[in-house]
Structure formats: structure tokens, C-alpha cells
């Protein structure tokens, strides 16, 4: 029973991070039909910013996290302006390839300037110290991940539901062209979407590296890909779908490792992508996604 609870704690943690990253993917996909392969690398950016803030600037944790969000968000907006906006109106494939190039650019810039050597990201002791509680081994960071993620998701939902720009974002993801005709500044909406999405990935990166203790230039790549699986589970383009999908994937992955025979536990990443293939086979639209009709 304790074992089950412990795994549940782990799954909630992992799921929270996947959900944060998946939301960012889904927001951008909803508007531009772009699978942003550089999204995971914004996690890396966030983690490095937090590392710099904690070790070089000796800032408190909360401000390091805020800084990571702001820097990642700003970089997201700049990338959109420089690399994606010139491609407006060209094929979807062009943006996808561009996002690959940006991913490679971020990874290799980090390798060149900061070396590929993994660096420890040490959170203050009062967050990272593990203690026993009712038979469970938990650290305050576990609780922080869960609470912070839920807080951010609530804020995001309110933002999308009630603010003007949030409403415009939802409108854009339904039909960009019509929204444009209604007098909405589509480019501004897209910039905001990229900013929000990158900021969420940035904080997710801090949480990820804070939990596992290391940052390297490739930290965010695989979690970014897995977050796409989470987005597909929930239905790409749907924000609540991304949240639910993130947690479902977190549970699936953790419980696979916890309950499959130990010989298989090395295959956890493979399991996630086999799961992706299975979902695409059975229900490509995910839980909340709409069937994408063919339009002429």
C-alpha cells in the first residue's frame, strides 16, 4: 500500500511536468498546426537560467523560477518573430523543419558555450531534503511541483477563458483566417501563444532539473517529445486534454516501471512511444480532441 502511494506521488510529479510542457505544445499546435520540436529545449533554457540564477546570482528559489519563466518566454517570442513569422503562409512542413533546426541550434549553442558536461542544479536544502512521512519518502520539491503546476494550470485556464487575448487565442485555434477577418491581430496572438508556451516549458525545465538534480544541453529533448505523447493522449489542440494527458502519461510511465518485471524497467522510454503508436492506431483524436476533418 505504501509502495502504491509512493508511486502515486512519483506519478503526480512526473505527470505535472508533462502536463505543463504538453499545454505549451498544444497551444501552439492549436493555432499554427505546428509540432514544435524545439519546445523541449525551452525546458533546457529554463533549467540553465535557474542554474545561473541560483549559483551565480544567488537568488532565492522563487525568483530563480520567475526569471526562468521570463527568459524562456522572451526567447520563445524572439524565436517566433525571427524564425516562424517569415514562414507564415508557407507549408506546414516548413515550420516543422524550422523547429527542428531551432532545436538543434539551442542544443548545440549550449554545448558550445556551456559544454555537454551535465551540471548539478542544487535546490536549497529545505526543498531537496527527503524525509519519511507515513512510510513515504518525499521531499518538499515534490509538493512544490504539484502545487505550482496546478496553480499555473488554473491561472492559464482563467487567462484563456476570460482575458481578451485568451479569447482571441481560442478563436485562432478554431479558425485563424476568420479570426483575422474579425479584426484580431493574429500575429500578436501567436506571439503571446509562443511566449506563454515557452514560459511554461521554462518553469517545467526548472522543476524537472530540480527534481533530478542535473542539467545538460539535451535535458529537455526527450521530455519534450514525451509531452507530445501526453498531448496526443488528451487530443492535440485541447488544453484540458493536455493536462489530463500529462497526468495519464505520468501514471502510465511510473506504473510501468513500478509493476512491470524489473528486466523491463530499462525500456520505460520505449514504452511511452509504443503507447503513442497504440493510441494513434486506436484513437488518434485522443480523449478530448476533435476528429480533424479533411478540408479542401
Amino acid at each position, binding site marked *: 500500500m505504501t509502495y502504491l502511494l509512493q508511486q502515486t506521488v512519483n506519478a503526480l510529479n512526473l505527470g505535472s511536468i508533462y502536463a505543463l510542457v504538453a499545454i505549451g505544445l498544444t497551444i501552439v499546435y492549436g493555432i499554427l498546426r505546428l509540432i514544435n520540436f524545439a519546445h523541449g529545449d525551452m525546458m533546457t533554457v529554463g533549467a540553465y537560467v535557474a542554474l545561473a540564477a541560483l549559483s551565480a546570482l544567488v537568488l532565492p528559489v522563487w525568483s530563480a523560477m520567475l526569471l526562468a519563466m521570463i527568459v524562456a518566454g522572451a526567447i520563445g517570442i524572439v524565436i517566433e518573430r525571427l524564425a516562424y513569422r*517569415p514562414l507564415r503562409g508557407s507549408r*506546414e*512542413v516548413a515550420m516543422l523543419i524550422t523547429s*527542428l533546426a531551432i532545436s538543434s541550434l539551442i*542544443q548545440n549553442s549550449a554545448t558550445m558555450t556551456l*559544454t555537454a558536461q551535465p551540471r548539478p542544479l542544487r535546490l536549497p536544502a529545505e526543498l531537496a531534503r527527503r524525509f519519511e512521512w507515513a512510510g513515504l519518502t518525499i521531499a518538499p520539491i515534490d509538493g512544490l511541483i504539484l502545487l505550482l503546476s496546478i496553480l499555473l494550470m488554473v491561472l492559464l485556464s482563467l487567462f484563456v477563458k476570460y482575458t481578451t487575448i485568451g479569447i482571441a487565442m481560442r478563436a485562432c485555434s478554431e479558425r485563424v483566417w476568420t479570426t483575422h477577418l474579425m479584426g484580431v491581430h493574429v500575429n500578436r496572438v501567436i506571439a503571446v501563444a509562443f511566449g506563454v508556451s515557452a514560459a511554461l516549458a521554462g518553469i517545467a525545465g526548472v522543476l524537472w532539473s530540480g527534481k533530478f538534480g542535473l542539467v545538460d544541453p539535451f535535458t529537455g529533448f526527450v521530455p519534450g517529445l514525451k509531452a507530445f505523447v501526453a498531448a496526443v493522449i488528451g487530443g492535440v489542440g485541447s488544453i484540458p486534454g493536455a493536462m489530463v494527458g500529462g497526468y495519464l502519461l505520468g501514471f502510465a510511465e511510473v506504473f510501468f516501471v513500478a509493476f512491470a518485471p524489473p528486466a523491463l524497467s530499462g525500456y520505460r522510454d520505449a514504452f511511452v*512511444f509504443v503507447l503513442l503508436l497504440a493510441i494513434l492506431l486506436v484513437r488518434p483524436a485522443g480523449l478530448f480532441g476533435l476528429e480533424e476533418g479533411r478540408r479542401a
Partner: protein
Amino acid sequence: MRSLYGWLALGAGAALVVLAEYRLNDYYQRVLAVVAINVILAVSLSLTNGFSGDVSLGHAAFMAIGAYASALLTMPASMKLLALPDLPAWLARLELPFALALLAAGVLAALAAFVVGIPVLRLRGHYLSVATLGLMVIVQVVALNWQTVTRGARGLNGLPPLTTLLWAYGWMLVSVIVIWRLVRSPFGRAMLAVREDELAAACRGVRVVRTRMLAFVTGAFFAGTAGALWAHLITAIAPASFSFFITFNVVAMVVIGGAGSITGAILGGVLMTLLPEWLRGIETSLAGSGRPLYGLSQIVIALLMLLVMIFRPQGLLGGRELTDLLRRPPPVRPGENEGAVGRAPR
């Protein structure tokens, strides 16, 4: 190859390859062989990424499958006994000639592509990208964990060095000709139709999924053989050899050379082998000064790709082939209708 000039060019090429085989030093031989392998990779990827219009990111995975398959099939039995004592008996005893191992490598990669293709190819194009990257992760994880067959992270080394220049260029010629013929067959026309407008193609009776599958599986077959050639050139493979980095470089070859053109893919393959090779020289020359710039060559490639996407999305050759350049311009160039009014909102 119908004309006299074709045969002459072939003969001259063969003579050059033989000459290179005997006269050049090891370094240049290796670079030349890598050029041939990269051309195979680029041309095979251009089937999906250039002609049928999907973006496959699975080339590293297919190469890995081909490389491991061919390595296991050609390693001397005595060596397998030492390095991999727990192999199933039939595989431990098996020692195939290189040609058969090459074919097996291609077929296994094609099978993997087929399995991935079934759920994915009927969906919107970009699901393929994610699923093939997922395949890369799956293949890496399996290669890391399947100790009895792959030796895990240690990888397989001391493979027989079977990839001579003649093999590399001979097989390159075979793959280019097969893909050239395929693209100019009715299937190739169907691929173009699917790329330009899936719905319209379907309405004209093109079997969309089957067409995409053919492009994808054929591409994977040749990628698998390229992986085998590569394994027997470097003679050591490990799971980490087949990373995103490889896939990205092959995609860059197709994008920069010009998607939808076999000549472009060949050009991209050659350029994208020589340019990084040259840049790597700079990277390591700076290592002596205490500040190596590892990653520089990849940054240059990534920037180049960004610039190509913005300023020349059709790539260097823009869908034209060498034969078009020699004769007349084609009626419609792929990419010409990009940015047209109908596509504007997206």
C-alpha cells in the same frame, strides 16, 4: 543510361572509384565512403520528405536497425562466441556474405517502417514526424537494454571492414537508380499528387495511404542498407551512434539540396558531408587553444537550414533535376504555388 554518354560516365566513374580505392590515403577514402553513404541516406529520405510530402525523422532508427542487423549477420562466429555468448544458436553460427547481410539490413528496416506506418500514415502528415522520432528513441532504448544481442551501451566493435569504396559507390548507384525510376513511375506521380493536394489526389483515385507507405518503406529500406554500409566502414557501433543528430543532418541534406529533387538530395548529401568535415577541422584546431568549439558545425548547419527555409524554401535546386537543367524547365516546379492565397491563413 540509355545513351552512350551515360555508359561513358558510368565507366569513368567506376575507373575513378577504383583509382581512389588504391591511391588515396585512409582519411580521404573514409570521407569519400561517407559521402556515398550520405547520398544514399539523403536520396532515400527525399522519397518521403521530398516527394510524398511527409516529414520522416526516422533515418537514424532505420540506420541503427540496418547496422545492428548486418553486424550480427557478418561477424565471424568465433568472435560472436566471445563477445556475445548468449546469442540464439542459429544467429551465433550464421555468417552471411555482405550482399545478403545488406539486403537483410534493408528488409528489417523496411519492416520497422511498415509497423510504424500502419497507425501513422493515415493521419495528418506531421504525426509521422513524432512517431518516427519516437521510433528512434525505441530503437536506442532496445539497443541499450537488449544485452544478449547488442551488448548494450558498449556496442559492437571489431566488425569486419567490408565497406570498400566500390561497395559504397556501387550501392549508391543502385539506390539512386531505383529511386529515380520509382519517382518517375506512376507511383512517383501519385506521390507528387499526394504531396500537392491529398484530397484532390484521393478524388482522382490515388490510394493515398498506400502511396505514402511505399515511399516511406522504400526510403527505410535504403536507410537500413546505408546503416549497414556505415557500420562496416566505421567497424564499431553503439546505441549512441544513432541519435537525433544523424537524423537532423540527413533532413538538412534534403532541405538544403532541394526537396523533391534527386539531384538536389545528392548535392545536399555531398555538401553536408564535406562542410561539417571542414568545420570539424576548425573545431578541433581551436581545441589546442583551450577553447574547443564543439557544436560549431551543427550550429552552422542549423542556421543554414533556417536561412534556407526563409529565403529559399525550395532548396538549392528547387525540385529541378540535372536532366531538367540540361534540357528544358519542367512545366510546374514544386513549391511554386507556396504562399498562394488559398494557403495564406496557415
